[in-house]
Structures are given as C-alpha cells and as structure tokens.
C-alpha cells in the first residue's frame, strides 16, 4: 500500500527551503500559492523523489477555483496531494507543469477548457473536449447552458410558450 504523505510534514520540509510557498496545510493535502508552484515541485522532485504526476484536475468552489495535483514517488511509494487556489475567476492563472511533467499537457488543456484556468507557459493551450468556438466553461458552477432550439410542435416548446419563455 502506498503511504499518503501528510501535508504538515511536507509543509515543514518546504518551509525550510521556500518560506512563502505554503498557503494552508492539512493532514491529507497541502495548499500552495500559484507563484511558488514550480519551485515547490522542483524541490519535491529533488528532496522527496516525487517524480510522477498522477492526476491534474480542478474544483470550483464559489469563492475560488482550486487546481488539484496528485503526485507520487514511484521509488519510495508515496502519494501526495497539492492544491492551488485561484481567487480571481475572471483571470485565473496558474503556472504550467509541462516543463516538469509532459503528462500535464492534456490535463491542463482539459482544466482550461472546462474551468477557464489559464496555465502560463503551456505550449498549446486550447480547448480539448468542447469544440472550437464554444463560449463559456461548462464545469463552472455559474455556467448556464444556452437553451436548445426545439422543433415546432414539440411538447417542450409548447410548454415554454405557455410559460411565456423565449
């Protein structure tokens, strides 16, 4: 079984080298400031031999958008969770991890597509799952799907006309 590294231990390790990197620490994860993400990951690669990026995803809490990274050390069998919070929904920007891990490429494109988080330094940041020209980011909590036009005579259209909708 792999061991999930405790956020507090890793934070203690990081504080020695990078004093302003850690935003918040908990038992199961670690929140890092966006500016310090690359340095933190390089430091972890050197010190804790964390060499594998398992997963890169995001969560939309209404106050902030949180990008979640699941890292692991293959030789020591450790797992670690790092979270980066973007408080500005309009201009959410996080440094890209593609210089360190090639696997972050497509996953960052997916997060950009569905959440609108821009990854600085990404070689090819464009939409992945939605099509070119789609407006909006679907997995945001405030995303509203534009109404699908209904053919005349469909019950949905009739009901919409009854209620006085467009």
């Amino acid at each position, binding site marked *: 079984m792999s061991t999930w590294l405790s956020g507090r231990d890793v934070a203690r390790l990081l504080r020695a080298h990078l004093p302003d990197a850690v935003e918040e620490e908990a038992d199961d994860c670690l929140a890092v400031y966006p500016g310090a993400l690359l340095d933190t990951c390089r430091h972890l690669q050197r010190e804790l031999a964390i060499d594998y990026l398992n997963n890169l995803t995001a969560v939309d809490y209404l106050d902030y958008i949180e990008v979640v990274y699941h890292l692991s050390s293959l030789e020591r069998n450790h797992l670690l969770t790092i979270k980066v919070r973007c408080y500005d929904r309009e201009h959410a920007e996080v440094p890209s991890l593609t210089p360190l891990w090639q696997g972050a490429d497509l996953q960052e494109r997916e997060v950009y597509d569905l959440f609108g988080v821009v990854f600085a330094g990404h070689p090819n940041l464009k939409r992945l799952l939605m*099509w070119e020209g789609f407006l909006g980011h*679907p997995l945001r909590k405030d995303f509203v799907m534009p109404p699908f036009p209904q053919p*005349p005579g469909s019950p949905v259209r009739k009901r919409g006309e009854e209620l006085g909708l467009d």
Partner: protein
Amino acid sequence: MTATTFPYDPRELDRREGEEVERLIRGSQLAYVDEDPFMTSMLQENILVSTVDKMLNWARQSSVWPVAFGLACCAIEMMATGMSKYDIARFGMELFRASPRQADLMIVAGRLTWKMAPPLKRIYDQMAEPKWVLSMGFATSGGTFIGGYSMVPGVNLIVPVDVYVPGCPPRPETLLHGLMALQSKIKTESIMQDRLRQRERFFEERGNVLAGLGLPD
C-alpha cells in the same frame, strides 16, 4: 448323352435372345401415358414463384451488414451480441464492415457528443442505398443527456433513424429484437419506392422547415 444343350452355345444364345424380343414385342402393345400430376409435383418442388419485392426484401433483410460505429458502453453490448452466445451472424449480420461504403446498417451504439456529430453525418452520407440507421440505447435516442452541454439529445437530430432500441445499455436480446424489427420493416418496403429521391426530398423539406423556424445563429 443327355438332351440338355450347352447354354453358352451360340445358336442357343441367339434362340434365347429371339424369344426375349418376341416376348417384349407382345408386352409393348400399350404405350405409357404421360402422368401429368407426377410431372407438375416435381416442378412445384423445384421452381419458386414470387414477387420481385419479396425476393429483394428477403435478400436485403437477410444480409444486413452493419458498420462498426460503437461509441460508448453500448458498443460493448453490441460486441456481446456479435459473440457466440447471442450470435448476430445467424441473422445475417455477421460482417461488421469497417468502411461505410460497404455497409447497409449503421448501429449508433453509444452516446453522441456534438463534437462527434460531424463525423457521424459524414459516415452516414458515405453509405450507399439501401441504408438504415438503428439508434441503440437510451442516450442515443435522446434520453439521458437532454440538458447537457456536450451531448446530442437524440441522434435523430443528425440522421434519420429507423429503429430505436431502449436500454442503458440494451441487453443483447433487446438489440436482437431491434434488429428483427428492422428486418420486418425491410419486409414492408417495395422496389417501386425510390429511396434515394425520397431521402433527398425529405432532407430538403427538413432544411426548409429549419430555415422557416428562424433560429438565431
């Protein structure tokens, strides 16, 4: 010396042959009549009379070759239908052609995203007449994903569908029932209906209706 003559004596053989010929002449005084019922029953067993429609429909329904269009989980059930337990080959659909130009039926097996819809339309256009479409599954028929941001709510918005098979995913028996329903639909067709012109007119009418709706761009 006894009176019995040697049987292979040439004169004896000639005598016996002559006796046999005489006997045959005496017995052939009555001709064999042509037995009509006998002959017609042979013909009945060997000649088939039917309409061109029936033959054509039978041929078409018994060898519908699907194009492999498995998109999502319904594809697994389609594969299971093609395997030995729920054999699809016994209905004539043994060859899943990879190329749409060689296929008759498009089984849309799985949810369709808007991003995949142009390739689906293109593959449908590449199929030659006669062609049918079977919408497999609840999502493909417009159920599961009606309010979604990326899914087509029903593949009949993109291509005309002949048979809808419900289920999520439909069991192989359900898919086989849908295929048999398609076969009985093919049975009702006729060589007099010009499928190509009908389809072109249908698409034109649909384009007119869409233009008339005045949808915002």
